[in-house]
């Protein structure tokens, strides 16, 4: 094979390759150097696939070891007694807590993140928005354990007032009733998770809003729209799917967050109706908290709960990617 034909295989691979081109690429490496290099790089790709498969296989295998001996129903039991004979454990509390804390986090974080993104793209003075965006980028990199430490030492003591207030005015709903215990509850976890995922959602949303074509915004302006009306007519509709996928990425992170939850929550194995009373737990937090005292069987049980978390985050992330992919097609069709 000569050089000029190889030229045509040069990336980036945007157009769909023809069958002959694919064939050429398959045994395109005739020189030893080319063959070794292709082997190495393709091998790395394959290794990634193997790792993913291994994660699924090994987690499932260890999980079945534990679940097969579980005397309770793994999905509906709200108890975690792996040391008892026979062992009784289930993820009901963890699933509930994981979902509740993530919902709280999303409800708080998404509107605020969208507002900050709009602030950076449409409201803030230009000189300010650049540095602020940079700082938000940096904040996305703050390790979760530091958020956890801050949450436990600073956020928790500062929430008693808010909790009392919520209890006084919204306590009748049951969801916000508070018995006056330390505010190490699901609501606290939700707030902390919201603070943690705020930078990611803000960053992605900001990118999306920045890409809104100027001409649509000018069209709205020329019709006599106020700034807010421009945003409602031209910016938000265009950015909606981007914001959704940004939120899903944030959700994925909130679902799997371990240390921040483990430091802030005071867990138990009861499903609480109120988000202000301490108790409950999340998948990741439960693994971290229970791990050090767990026997080998106990660890397998924790692995089983981790498998559920794994599947949930896969679904959420998959959905986010699908939305992003759809949006690309959509905007391409419009161009």
């Amino acid at each position: 094979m000569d050089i000029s034909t190889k030229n045509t295989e040069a990336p980036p691979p945007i157009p769909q390759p023809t069958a002959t081109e694919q064939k050429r690429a398959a045994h395109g490496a005739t020189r030893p150097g080319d063959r070794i290099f292709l082997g190495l790089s393709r091998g790395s790709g394959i290794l990634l696939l193997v790792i993913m498969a291994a994660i699924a296989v090994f987690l499932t295998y260890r999980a079945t070891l534990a679940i097969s001996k579980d005397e309770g129903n793994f999905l509906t039991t709200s108890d975690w007694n792996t040391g008892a004979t026979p062992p009784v454990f289930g993820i009901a509390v963890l699933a509930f807590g994981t979902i509740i804390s993530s919902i709280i986090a999303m409800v708080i974080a998404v509107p605020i993140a969208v507002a900050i993104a709009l602030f950076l793209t449409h409201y803030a003075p230009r000189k300010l928005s650049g540095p602020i965006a940079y700082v938000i980028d940096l904040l996305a990199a703050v390790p979760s354990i530091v958020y956890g430490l801050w949450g436990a030492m600073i956020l928790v003591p500062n929430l008693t007032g808010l909790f009392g207030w919520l209890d006084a005015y919204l306590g009748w709903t049951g969801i916000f009733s508070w018995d006056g215990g330390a505010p190490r509850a699901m609501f606290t976890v939700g707030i902390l998770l919201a603070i943690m995922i705020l930078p990611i959602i803000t960053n992605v949303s900001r990118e999306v809003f920045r890409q809104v074509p100027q001409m649509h915004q000018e069209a709205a302006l020329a019709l006599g729209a106020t700034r807010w009306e421009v945003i409602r007519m031209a910016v938000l509709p265009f950015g909606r799917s981007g914001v959704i996928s940004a939120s899903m990425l944030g959700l994925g992170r909130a679902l799997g967050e371990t240390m921040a939850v483990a430091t802030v929550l005071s867990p138990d194995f009861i499903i609480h109706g109120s988000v202000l009373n301490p108790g409950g737990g999340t998948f990741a937090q439960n693994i971290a908290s229970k791990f050090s005292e767990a026997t080998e069987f106990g660890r397998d049980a924790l692995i089983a709960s981790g498998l559920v978390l794994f599947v949930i985050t896969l679904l959420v992330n998959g959905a986010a990617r699908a939305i992003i992919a759809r949006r690309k097609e959509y905007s391409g069709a419009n161009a």
Partner: protein
Amino acid sequence: MAKRIDVSGLTAYYGSHKAIEDISMTVEPRSVTAFIGPSGCGKSTFLRTLNRMHEVTPGGRVEGKVLLDDEDLYGTGIDPVSVRREVGMVFQRPNPFPTMSIFDNVAAGLKLNGSYKKSELQDIVEKSLKGANLWNEVKDRLNKPGSGLSGGQQQRLCIARAIAVEPKVLLMDEPCSALDPISTLAIEDLIGELKERFTIVIVTHNMQQAARVSDRTAFFNLAAVGQPGKLIEIDDTERIFSNPSVQATEDYISGRFG
């Protein structure tokens, strides 16, 4: 209801760069005024100062006066949002809102300005689309997205959207430059009809177009790249194209430069 525009001593900046300098002119109501001139001479910038769109660009600011029937658009207490409602604009590239249907695109400006009954809204949308010579082509698919139309149709949709709010003045920034000759002809015919109701100002690169559609023509030029653009002369279109009073205009029109 069309209004007269009186510009005096208008200078516009991008940051510290002076884009146009000391422009004064009068635009008569119910007429078409064309702006011609080489690229970068500031004719589009000047157009955008007439509905306060220039200041939307970062660093954009304006000195001087633009009187719309004796009221200064840049006077104190003037709300740019209200200005843009009175002075509509059509852009170079057709820009219907991609997420809205044809109907919603035309109704977009109306919905901003308060509550209309459904039937009222339908009447106005129909009237505007007819006014833009688009009704027959889209009446069966008003609920389809506007982005599905051809370029020329999209541009007429944008014109319908602009005239739906009944502006006093209609600004057009090279409305045909992205269109094929047949669509261009359709828009030019439309401009001829619209001038019965509106004061129209059109920026164009196409001198035949200026000659065809406009009553008066203004020629802009700049001394050199980086220098601010200036108004060289404004006169009846016939005179500009047959017997301009400034040599530079004649050079430009006869194709000797630019």
